[in-house]
């Protein structure tokens, strides 16, 4: 007998609006329906009504956890359109903040994963060592979150030399604790019993769904913008790409924990090699044309596209967040496992629902989100744009 077990429309744990409809037989999940679109905010549209500099702060508000990733990708896109590069010091600063953000985001996930399997001690301990990192963010940029470090053509704030030692000290602490957590996760037989062989996403499925970030790297699909298409300081430092072939939740956890130690390595090297000099290039106007920016956010590649007509506003701004690619892969990852595993598997891609929100067409109170509908809408919009810019 098939029954529906709902997770959502307001997720009881992640506290974000999404709806997973688990179709179960007894305890076994046979299918999954994913509904999004409860809280669409129309960032792309709003961005087209703002000046180039204002948009940096707008896209920062897309997501609270990767609040550096969206502006990072956006400024890379605008710099691409304007044919400028940031000065070396600014590049290093942005790389450091990007990597510190990866550590804080991965720690957030490890803690939540502990909570999802009912292991609240892991949750509290991991978040305890994430806390000093937020203090460092506050020290450098004045905010624990929403750092506002990015600017078209450089960085808004400098990392002062007296802050280096504080960051180094934290990295020492973190390195020790990260080794501890990695060992604890890998050695605990009960954790292994819960995570190993659960929610397997095969490499074929990973490629077919086009998943990104740790989700892909845990399935043996090596994709990382930092390696494939290095930007800023990523080609000037030495680090390894972490890839595991198993594809289960344990592999994803291992990827995230080991990536944290790679991030520590990157930040250390950046601090050591940081050149002196200005932290921004003046960008006076964006010439007509288009630009793309890609940044490896903690959850995978975040992609921004901007088009300029030479005015002070983008005429088109397109954002693709990694969770949008990762969440659909849950359909294959969760099939055949029990309800107990489902909550964990759905969380294993480290979903960010506010990045994923898209507009939804409702007809007679029923949700109509077919590919055809969206395609037609998109055609209509392209037609409108063409008519507008033909003149």
């Amino acid at each position: 007998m098939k029954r529906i077990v709902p997770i959502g429309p307001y997720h009881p744990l992640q506290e974000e609006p999404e709806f997973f409809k688990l179709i179960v037989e007894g305890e076994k999940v046979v299918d999954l329906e994913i509904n999004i679109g409860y809280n669409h905010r129309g960032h792309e549209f709003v961005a087209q009504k703002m000046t180039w500099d204002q948009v940096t702060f707008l896209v920062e508000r897309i997501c609270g956890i990767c609040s550096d990733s969206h502006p990072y990708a956006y400024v890379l896109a605008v710099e691409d359109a304007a044919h400028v590069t940031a000065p070396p010091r600014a590049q290093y600063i942005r790389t450091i903040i990007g990597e510190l953000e990866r550590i804080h985001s991965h720690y957030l996930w490890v803690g939540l994963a502990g909570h999802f399997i009912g292991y609240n001690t892991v949750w509290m301990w991991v978040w305890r060592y994430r806390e000093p990192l937020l203090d460092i963010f506050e020290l450098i940029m004045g905010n624990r979150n929403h750092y506002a470090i990015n600017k078209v053509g450089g960085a808004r704030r400098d990392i002062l030399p007296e802050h280096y030692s504080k960051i180094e000290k934290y990295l020492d602490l973190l390195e020790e604790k990260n080794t501890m957590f990695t060992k604890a996760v890998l050695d605990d037989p009960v954790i292994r019993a819960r995570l190993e062989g659960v929610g397997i996403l095969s490499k074929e499925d990973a490629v077919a769904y086009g998943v990104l970030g740790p989700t892909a790297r845990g399935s043996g699909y090596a994709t990382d913008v930092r390696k494939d298409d290095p930007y800023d300081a990523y080609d000037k430092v030495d680090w390894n790409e972490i890839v595991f072939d198993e594809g289960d939740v344990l592999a994803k956890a291992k990827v995230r924990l080991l990536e944290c130690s790679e991030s520590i390595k990157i930040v250390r090297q950046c601090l050591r090699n940081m050149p002196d000099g200005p932290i921004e290039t003046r960008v006076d106007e964006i010439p007509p044309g288009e630009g793309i920016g890609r940044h490896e956010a903690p959850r995978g590649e975040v992609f921004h596209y901007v088009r300029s007509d030479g005015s002070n506003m983008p005429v088109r701004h397109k954002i693709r967040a990694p969770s949008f690619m990762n969440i659909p892969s849950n359909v294959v990852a969760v099939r055949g496992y029990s309800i107990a595993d489902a909550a964990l598997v759905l969380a294993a891609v480290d979903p960010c629902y506010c990045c994923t929100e898209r507009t939804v067409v409702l007809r007679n109170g029923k949700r109509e989100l077919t590919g055809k509908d969206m395609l037609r809408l998109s055609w209509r919009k392209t037609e409108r744009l063409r008519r507008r810019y033909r003149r």
Partner: protein
Amino acid sequence: MSVVRILFSYIIFPGFIFTALVGLLLTWIDRKVTARIHWRVGPPWYQPYADFLKLLLKETIIPEGSSKVLFLLGPIIGLVAMSILAVMLFSMNLNPGNTFVGDLIVMIYLLALPPLGIMIGGSASKNPLASVGVSREMTQYFAYELPFLITIAGIILKAGGSIRFGDIILAQKASGPFLYSISGVIGAIVILLSAQAKLGFVPFDIPEAEQEIMAGPYIEYSGVALAMYKLVRAMMLFLLPLFLISVLWGGLGDWWAILKFLLIIVLIVLIKNTNPRIRIDQSLRFFWLGIGILSVVGLVLAVYGL
């Protein structure tokens, strides 16, 4: 006069009110120790009482289309069973002669009633998540009850084949607690883990798994009914360690019993905080294969008097 005394013992001491008050205090110890393990501060001592009073003032919502009687019967069954169990445990510990044939069996049945109440109330609430929780509760009940009963059989053997609770305590007074033998240690491990499962603590909080099925059978409960469930849980936290001490660790005869009691509570809280929740199939395998075989070994050892 005797009617008044019986009513007093069931309602005030050591029955309902005393057990409830101590049980709520124990949930505070649980929360405080958990908080210290988590590097948190933890609540003040009156927090469980405040929570309980708050729930009493809230509206009790009964879901539409559910059986009102069964829905409200769920928590009451557990509450009554625990009150009676408290009276039996105390009166027989303080006065071992005050016993009757088969009272140990009655106690086992009383311990089985709270899960039954959860099952009845949960399935009456007509919620898909609650029904998943009920099916898990049922599986879990059969999982932990088997090794628990085998261990009790071993204890009965050690007490000379008597199914009187008073005789078990007297036997321990005569020849030392059963715990100080191999089969006694095995029995203590089995009963402790079964108690963990009966209490619904991690790693065996599978039936209510808030992260998976959002508290399962309790999902539709609110107000007074939920407060009663919380109270049943608190009373069990008080009575299960008492039961363990009574049948294995020499009864409640002396002041050492308080120390033993606190030790067991801390042990339960530590197990709760150093383990993730396991899956229901893993729990079944653990109790039937792992702990079940262990309890059979304990029974065989008890036969040979070890």
